[in-house]
């Protein structure tokens, strides 16, 4: 059963300028999906639409089969949410903020909350305003998960954290996956975190869905073909080849991303364009991201 479905979601902040354009994808129970895209690509907007904080302009969103704008309480009580710009009331202590959450969520799991507090070495009496950024994010994560939500929406959860705090956040997430199992949609600019956590990658680019593939498939059946300049291939002829997702002009020639294994991409470039010796390789997520979303030179 799908936990979240986005159906042809459009959203514009100004008339005529779509922040999201016709985005369709779903998340199944137990899936961990990494949401990628440049700043301003529409990641946060998507997550906020799933939370019911924003409405879709056109199209529809269902979370647990419900419209989050129609049934906000029913939906939100089953979601855990952490975002980079989340602000916890600085004058409250950790114990007080936990009290509030315990009161809000009937499913609150005190044992889990205490276990995480211990894991994070946080004392209950510390004031939220006195915590480091990493500690504050840990408290936010604790509050997001201790009511045992069926869905975690994490909007750039590791943003602004130092490498140690980021790693700790990642390890806690993996700990939770191991102990609880969870359905997670998380956006991140840290490609290594996505590579460690996500089974599936969704990439939005300029408001449109560019990629929606299992991570392993991106690495095995997608490649970057580097075609030296001066042999007749052009951006247009490359783009016309099926499976071509994008082309960039670089100083050493053209770089084309193909939804094909390297050997097939190389063979297709040779067959269609008569270009021999295209250097086709599978690449890590960061390089793939830059090839797809990076600028032309």
């Amino acid at each position: 059963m799908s936990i979240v479905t986005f159906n042809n979601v459009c959203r514009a902040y100004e008339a005529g300028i779509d922040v999201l354009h016709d985005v369709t994808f779903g998340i199944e129970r137990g899936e961990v999906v990494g949401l990628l895209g440049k700043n301003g690509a529409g990641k946060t907007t998507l997550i906020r639409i799933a939370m019911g904080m924003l409405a879709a302009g056109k199209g529809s969103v269902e979370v647990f089969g419900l419209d989050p704008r129609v049934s906000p309480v029913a939906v939100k009580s089953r979601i855990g949410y952490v975002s980079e710009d989340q602000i916890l009331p600085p004058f409250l202590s950790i114990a007080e903020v936990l009290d509030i959450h315990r009161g809000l969520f009937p499913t609150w799991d005190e044992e889990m909350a205490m276990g995480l507090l211990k894991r994070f070495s946080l004392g209950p009496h510390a004031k939220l305003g006195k915590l480091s950024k990493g500690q504050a994010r840990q408290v936010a994560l604790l509050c997001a998960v201790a009511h045992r939500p069926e869905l975690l929406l994490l909007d750039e959860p590791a943003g602004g954290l130092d490498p140690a705090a980021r790693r700790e956040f990642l390890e806690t997430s993996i700990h939770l996956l191991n102990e609880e199992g969870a359905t997670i949609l998380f956006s991140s600019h840290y490609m290594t975190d996505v590579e460690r956590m996500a089974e599936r990658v969704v990439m939005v680019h300029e408001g449109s869905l560019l990629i929606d593939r299992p991570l392993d498939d991106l690495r095995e059946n997608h490649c970057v073909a580097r075609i030296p300049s001066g042999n007749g291939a052009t951006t247009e002829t490359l783009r016309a080849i099926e499976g071509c997702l994008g082309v960039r002009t670089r100083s050493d020639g053209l770089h084309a991303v193909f939804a094909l294994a390297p050997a097939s991409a190389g063979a297709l470039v040779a067959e269609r364009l008569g270009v021999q010796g295209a250097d086709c390789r599978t690449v890590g997520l960061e390089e793939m991201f830059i090839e797809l979303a990076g600028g032309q030179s």
Partner: protein
Amino acid sequence: MLIVVDPHSGVPVYRQLMDQVKFHVASGLLKPGDELPSTRSLSAELGVNPMTISKAYSFLEREGLVERRPGRPLVVGGVSDDDARTRRVEQLEESLAPTITVARQLGFSDDEVVDTLRRMLDGTKAGEGSDDHTDSADKESHE
């Protein structure tokens, strides 16, 4: 058992795991009956999604390299001497393949490649250059 993954490489993590377990089995570091770490502990240790470990283990199981017993850790399966040899040959071929590609790109003939390889093999045997070092490192990795 030493397993290292590079989540950033173009090779999927589950495949990196499979390759390393296969290598350890072929080299004898892992012997039939040896237990593999649980999905949970390996996932925590490597900092990767437990599903990735499960995927690698399922494929290894399907290939007959490991055996699953209900409620017990996964163990390395028994192999005949012939199979063990075949696996070692496969491992060797796999690691030599890129060398052959490079040699061809550099324009060496097959004979020259074979000669070079033989010269290097002799070199490590005869106590010239780095052999002591290689030998002891070799032994350590088998213990």
